[in-house]
Structure formats: structure tokens, C-alpha cells
């Protein structure tokens, strides 16, 4: 049992008051998620339920987006380049849920973000003139925490941005100075709330010009809690048997992205713990964390150790709770980052390192008696006809046409994320509302 939830990795950004508010916020997400479950729901939180004998369950997944690895299994270069391009709509056509007024309605504001949807994002800082890599920064920091920081301590927010990204960050850069609307659920109603004057999580220092926290619309802590809650419900397939396979579960329950490494893995593990007679929660401090990076494929020049290039900036490595880490050569080494070999070839993209990063959440499980809530499947999966290596979640009565063989690379050389996705963006953005399907 804990009296309050800590800040992610117990970082020391917040004063006592704001920290208590953060705890209340996280507590509220859990309570809301718990209340949304059927009777005897198997999600609990560490404030309300004492359980000192809970078992720890570390759930790992790879930081590099699986969807790109599935889409271009052999074209390594293309997936590296694509994955670190800042976009205004992701590979699936989703844009961030920010809108501008147009005519009598709203259109998507097409704000920038990184199409890196495994709770791991990175930014390759380059010299503007030469394009040479200066450093590569990884984060798993959730956007809600930074929103909270902005709401409770603007000075600290600015100080951290300047410290983490650039001394050139100005206060106005971090806040909307125009009418931009965001859907917010209040008292059961979805309202378009004007963000003018409020923190802009997709500001340029957190997208094109740098990185502070996660930006992909699906990469939120609230989504993680919602996914965890949804995954506690056991599911029966058409034949009446419990669905136990992770891939089938996520299709059946539609609690996340089927083409990711993270969501099927998190949901599957949680569901397995519930099937085993447990109630589950996420360990305090609640967060997504960089668990590890594999140094072995990294060969810096001049006898420099790879570990000496990796600096944990926020969080800590010993407990597998890294929030932010930076890869750069030691000061005064006399070498360029392009002299570093990764897997036998020069470092050119942060994505090469992202493939070596493991992200984790720390789960907890306690044995409980009784029958866990069990429901029927609500969705199924179909192959995507345009990219047969990817799936999509479909309605149960929807036909799944079988795609024909396609070439991996030829024919879609002109694939451009934003152009391809533009038609669908506005409509699909509605799915970014903060509901339990927000990871989809």
C-alpha cells in the first residue's frame, strides 16, 4: 500500500502540493478505470488496496515501432528514416486530437508528432548546417505529467525545457497562442475545449527541434491505464472457450494497436495474470520506462566504451526506470558520432539505437478469490488489404477480403505519410478521444 503515487521514476520536479495533485490525478484514472469494469473487476490501485505480498511482473517490449518492421521487414534503411520523420498523421492516418474552427465545425489542426508508437520516442539532434549528428535523445515520459507540470509550475517547466533541449526555449514557445481545441470529457460529455494560453505538448521544442516527452497520440499514461483495465476482462471466443493468445485477445477486446509490440504484450500478460487468479495493477511510480539498451552492437571509435556514451538524464537504470537518456560521445573525444559503428555500420539514424532499446512497465499481481469478469469478443482482426503484413481491427460481421501478394518495396516508393493519410485524418482523429480504445 502506498499513501500517494510518486512522480514517474520519483523524479524531483514537483513541490509538495503539485505532487499531491499528480497523485490524485493518477489515482483518479485508476478509480475511473476500475469503476468502468464489471463487478469483481480485477484492476486495483496501490492506494486503495493494501497488498504487500504482490508479485512483481516486468513486461518488456522493443522500443522501435513494430509496424515499420512488419511493413518493411527487409528494407531497413526505409524503416529507420520513416520512423524518425516528424509527421502530422501517422502511418495509419491518425492525427493528434487538436482542432481548429473552420466554417461551422472543426478541422484537425495537423500538429506535428513522432510516429513512434511503442511508448518510446527519440530525436536525433543534428547540426543545422552540416547535418552531422550531435546527440540522440530517448524518452518514455508521459505527456500528462508534463501537462500537469505546465499547469502547476510554469517556471519549472521552462527551466526543464531549457535544461533538456535548448537555452533558446522561450516561455511563449510552450503555450498555444491561438484558438486550438481539444476534446475533453467532462461529466460524461465530450467538449471542445479551447487550449489558447495552455501548454502545447506538441510545441516545436518537443517535435521538430527537440524532445522532452512522448508525442504520439497513442503514447499516453491514461491510455496505458485504460489498456490495463480493459485487459483484465477475460474473453470468450465464438466457441465459448477463453481466448488466451495475446494476438487473438487484442483483436477480440480491441484494447490497443494490433501491430505494435507493446499493446498485445501488455494486455496479454495482464489477462494471463487475471486468468491465473490475480488482480493486477501498475507499480508505483506509475509510468512507462526505458528498461535497457543493448550496448553490445555499438562500437565507438578510439577505445571509447559504448556505456560511456549513454547517459541517463532522468530516472535510473538500476531499477529499470529510465525516463530520458542521451547518446553522445564524451566531451572532447575528437570523434564524430558518425564514427560510431552500430551493428557494423556507421551511425546515421537514432533509429539504429532505438532498435536496441527495451521499454518496460512494472506490473503487480495479487491472488484473489472468485470469478473474474468474462465477456464475449467485441471485435476481430482482418488483414489490411493494402499491407498484408499488418492487421486492422474490424467489426465482428465485417468481411475480411484476402489480399493478394504484393512487393515489399517496389510500387510504393512514393509513399508519403502525410499525403497518403490526409483524407482519413479528421475522421479518425475522433478516436483519439480519451476512452478505453485510445491505444487503438
Amino acid at each position, binding site marked *: 500500500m502506498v499513501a500517494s503515487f510518486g512522480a514517474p521514476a520519483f523524479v524531483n520536479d514537483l513541490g509538495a502540493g503539485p505532487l499531491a495533485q499528480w497523485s490524485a490525478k493518477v489515482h483518479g484514472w485508476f478509480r475511473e478505470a476500475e469503476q468502468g469494469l464489471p463487478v469483481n473487476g480485477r484492476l486495483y490501485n496501490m492506494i486503495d488496496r493494501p497488498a504487500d*505480498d*504482490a*508479485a*512483481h*511482473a*516486468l*513486461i*518488456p*517490449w*522493443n522500443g522501435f515501432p*513494430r509496424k515499420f518492421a*512488419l511493413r518493411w*521487414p*527487409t528494407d*531497413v*534503411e526505409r524503416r529507420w528514416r520513416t520512423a524518425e520523420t516528424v509527421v502530422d498523421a501517422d502511418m495509419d492516418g491518425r492525427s493528434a486530437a487538436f482542432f481548429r474552427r473552420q466554417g461551422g465545425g472543426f478541422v484537425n489542426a495537423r500538429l506535428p508528432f513522432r510516429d513512434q508508437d511503442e511508448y518510446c520516442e527519440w530525436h536525433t539532434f543534428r547540426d543545422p548546417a552540416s547535418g552531422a549528428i550531435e546527440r540522440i535523445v530517448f524518452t518514455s515520459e508521459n505527456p500528462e505529467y508534463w501537462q500537469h507540470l505546465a499547469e502547476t509550475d510554469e517556471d519549472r517547466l521552462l527551466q526543464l525545457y531549457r535544461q533538456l533541449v535548448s537555452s533558446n526555449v522561450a516561455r511563449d514557445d510552450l503555450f498555444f497562442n491561438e484558438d486550438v481545441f481539444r476534446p475533453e470529457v467532462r461529466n460524461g460529455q465530450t467538449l471542445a475545449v479551447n487550449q489558447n494560453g495552455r501548454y502545447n505538448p506538441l510545441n516545436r521544442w518537443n517535435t521538430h527541434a527537440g524532445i522532452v516527452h512522448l508525442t504520439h497520440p497513442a503514447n499516453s499514461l491514461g491510455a496505458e491505464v485504460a489498456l490495463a483495465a480493459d485487459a483484465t476482462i477475460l474473453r470468450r*471466443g465464438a466457441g465459448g472457450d477463453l481466448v*488466451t*493468445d*495475446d*494476438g*487473438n485477445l*487484442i483483436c477480440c477486446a480491441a484494447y490497443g494497436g*494490433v501491430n*505494435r*509490440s507493446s499493446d*498485445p*504484450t501488455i494486455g*496479454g*500478460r495482464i489477462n*494471463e495474470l487475471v486468468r*491465473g487468479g490475480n488482480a493486477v495493477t501498475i507499480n508505483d511510480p506509475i509510468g512507462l520506462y526505458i*528498461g*535497457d539498451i*543493448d*550496448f*553490445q*552492437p*555499438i*562500437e565507438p571509435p578510439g577505445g571509447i566504451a559504448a*556505456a560511456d556514451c549513454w547517459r541517463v538524464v532522468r530516472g535510473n537504470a538500476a531499477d*529499470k526506470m529510465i525516463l530520458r537518456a542521451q547518446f553522445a560521445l564524451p566531451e572532447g573525444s575528437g570523434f564524430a558520432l558518425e564514427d560510431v559503428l552500430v*551493428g*557494423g*555500420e556507421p551511425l546515421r539514424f537514432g533509429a539504429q539505437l532505438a532498435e536496441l532499446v*527495451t521499454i*518496460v512497465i512494472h506490473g503487480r*499481481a495479487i491472488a484473489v478469490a472468485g470469478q473474474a469478469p468474462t465477456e464475449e469478443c467485441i471485435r476481430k*482482426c482482418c*488483414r489490411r488489404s493494402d499491407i*498484408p*503484413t499488418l*492487421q486492422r481491427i474490424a467489426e465482428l460481421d465485417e468481411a475480411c477480403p484476402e*489480399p*493478394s*501478394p*504484393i*512487393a*515489399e518495396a*517496389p510500387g510504393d516508393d512514393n509513399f508519403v505519410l502525410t499525403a497518403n493519410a490526409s483524407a482519413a485524418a479528421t475522421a479518425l482523429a475522433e478516436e483519439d478521444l480519451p476512452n478505453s480504445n485510445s491505444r487503438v
Partner: protein
Amino acid sequence: MPHQQIIALGGDLAAVRSLVARVAPLVTYCGEAFAYHEERVDIAKRTATFGRESFAAMSAAGRLRWLNIAIGAKPLAEAGITAPQAADRSFALGLSARSTTLGDPRQPGTPGHRDGWLVGSPDAPPDLLLILACEHAYSLAEFVAEVLQLVSGAGLAVLYSEAGTRLPKDEEHFGFRDGISQPGVRGTVGDDPASLLTRRKLSPSHEDDAPEFSAPGEVLVWPGEFIFGYPMQDPHHFQRALPENLVDPFLVDGSFLVFRRLRQHVGAFRRAARSLVEQLTAFEEFREVDEAWLQARLVGRWPSGAPVQVFENGDPHDPPGSLDRFNNFAFRNAVPEVTTLDGETIPGTAADQNGLLCPFAAHIRKVNPRDARTNLGPATQTQKLRLLRRGIPYGPAWQSSEDDDATDRGLLFISYQRSIRLQFETLTQDWMNSSINPEGSAGHDVLVGQSRRESSGRTGVFTRKSGGPFRELATAEEWIEPTGGGYFFAPSRQAITSFLEAGEEGERQ
């Protein structure tokens, strides 16, 4: 084949092409090998003779000579052939460039560092790999002598030539039976639908959303995972095929080949096992375990091949029935009792989700998590990391009187796969060498893996109870030393012809 010779060759394109032309008529193709295999299995079943010994029963069939050929990236590029390099970036880079990715030492001068390799060092990458195989050592020696004459005639340099011999009971040098679990490859040989590449010991599955097995524990996998030009395994479905990409004709019916010469320091392994047992028995709940227990947990099997998950308390030595008794288990889900088409009943096995029986770090669990989700996605994705392993031990068997490791012995590891990068390398780098992956915090594959953090060595986690306590053991002792190898492309008959023609065009230019 119980006796094999691995020969690595180097030379310019003309010499490589010249030898390929000379040995092309000797290459053994699938149909021939398949027919031999079918006959051997029939005889083996009739006479109840399995493993290495089953080849002796075939000796009356004749003086068998098998040869396989695989080409390195350089001669292909020189011949203007780029499809294999485009299909696999790691193949294009080569094993020595990818060596540290696999966990090999980074410091020159360290045992195992690529600069000191017997074959495949950065300054002498092999251009061609020949694998010769015979039923008897004496016939292999004759075959090797004849082929080396062809090599000499072609003007190629022999960079490496070494014999491999299967050990009694198909053990590897640490004393554990090897090769029990292999994927069951779907498909037929030729057009006859009854001519299944993998014999079925079980009735077809009626469950659509679960793995289908050709034999107990032997999952059926689509052939495109190993050979180009065939349907692949769907990453989202156990049984469904993924439509084949439109691949370059040069790749069709070909496969990537990984060769790693891995020296095994048996004395070091046994000494380390003694030390690890001392660490473990300091904990009350492990007070009674001994060296054999610990070694079996590092492997996941007892020396006989019996899985520790099924035979928790000791090695049964011989399987109580067929070898299928040693393979009917999964880690995440209970496996039901099955009756084979031969009428043998194989008992079911309880799940081991928390690694209480077979630790997460056990070698067989690290390299083949079976039905487990991993850091790479759901269990359907796990089926895409299988290899066709065709390795063979080299060097004399270890004698219990030996206390040092002066004798060079080990494994000539060979695997075939569609993608070196996505299969062999991923399971080595991302699973075996990770203390977290594939199933959660568990330690490294202490048996074969390498530590990412050179200072702390490899760790393995043991627990008796779900929820712990978790006992972490560590060792910095190295008992697997990479001593060479290479990445190659094993071409089809058609691709061999294309390579020769492309070479001729190149020469004319």
C-alpha cells in the same frame, strides 16, 4: 549425415565461378536428400535405431556423397547480383562486421575476437563455403580429397577445412542431446500432395487459432521462413500463410546460411557450474540441488534431452517411449495428452508461466519460447524466429579425466533461414544476450549467450515460487568462444546457373 567437412574458400570471381561450375554437378538437391531421409526414417522405425546410429543401417544403400554450396556477398556483388544483399542487410555486411552485435568480444586480442578467427576474420572473408557429407569417415576423406583437387584446379585458396562428426546419442560436447526440437516445415516435395516434406505424426488440427503440430511439440511453420519463393508464416496467426512477397528470381529456392565455429570449453563450463551451484545452495530453498540439476536448468533439458519441465526430479535417460516424449510441452499454456497416428500416447504437460520448472533463462526457452509472447509481440510472432539448425560437433568427445581445455572441440553451427537479421541475429542478440528479453526479467542465456555489460558477466535468475524470492546467479566465466564463420547464400540450381552466367558476362565486359 554423421560425417561432414566444412571447407571455406577464397579467390577472385573467375576462380569462384570456375569452381562452382566444377562442383555444380555434385550438388545434392532437395529431392535426393528427401528420398534418402524418407528411407532412413522407415528403416529407423522398423529397426528402432535413431539418431547417428540410423545412418549405419543405410550404408548398404551405397557410397553416398552429398555436397552443398553457399556463396558469400563479395563474389555475388562482383558478378552484378544484388538481390541477396538487398534482401538481408546483415548478409551484405558479413559476419565479422556483425560479430559484436552477436555479443562477441570487442577488444582485439581477446579470445573470440574476430581478428583472431580461424576462418572469416575481417581481412579474409570466405567467398565460398562447401559442405561435404558422407555416412562414413573414410568415404568423406576420399570425397574431400577429390573436391580439393577441383579447388586447386580452379585456383581457389583453401582458407579453412575441418571435419565434423556427430557424437554418440547426438550429444554436443557439454554432454546434452542436441537437435530434439526443430520446426515442422509445411509443404510437399514436388506436386504430389501426399509427399509431405514433414511427416505427420498427429492428425490435422481442428483449432483455427492455435499452433498446428506435425509431431508432439513440433510446430508446423510455412516454408517461406526458410526458403525464398514460398508462403511465409503470418506474424498475426499461427496457421495462416502470409502471401509471399514478389522476390527476385535469383532468391527463389535459395536460403541464407549462417556458419559459426564455436569452440566449447567443457572444463570451464563444468567448473563454472560447480561455482554456480555453490552460490545457489546458499539459499535455503535450493539447498538440495546439485551440479546436474543446475546444468539441466541452464539447458532446460537433462543430458538425455528430457525436458526439466516434464521430468522435474531427474533424468529418465531413455525416453519412456519415443523421443516425442521429450518434446510435448509449451511454456505459457498447458499441453494436452495426444495420441500419435502410430498409436503412441504422449502425456500432456502443465504450463510453466513463471519459470518455476524451466527458468526463463534456460537455453531452450531463450532460443525457442514456443507459445510465449515476447518483447517482439504475440506468440504468433514468436513462430517467425525459427531456424533450420544443421550444425555438427567437431573435435574429440570430452573425457571426464580432462581438467583443462587444451583440446579444441566445439560446434560447427549451421543454420538456414530466410533472414539472418530477423531470425538468427534477433534471437541471438535480442533474446539470448538480454537479461530482460524475451519473457521478462530473467537473466541471460547463461549457457550460450553473452553479457551486454562486460563487467557483470552473465546472470541467470532462479525461483521456486511465483513472486519470488528470485535468486540471481552470475558468472564471468566464458565457455563458448567464437572462432570463425561467415554469412552465405545457399543458391538454388537455377541460381547457380545464373551466377555462372552473370560471371561470364562480367568477364566479357
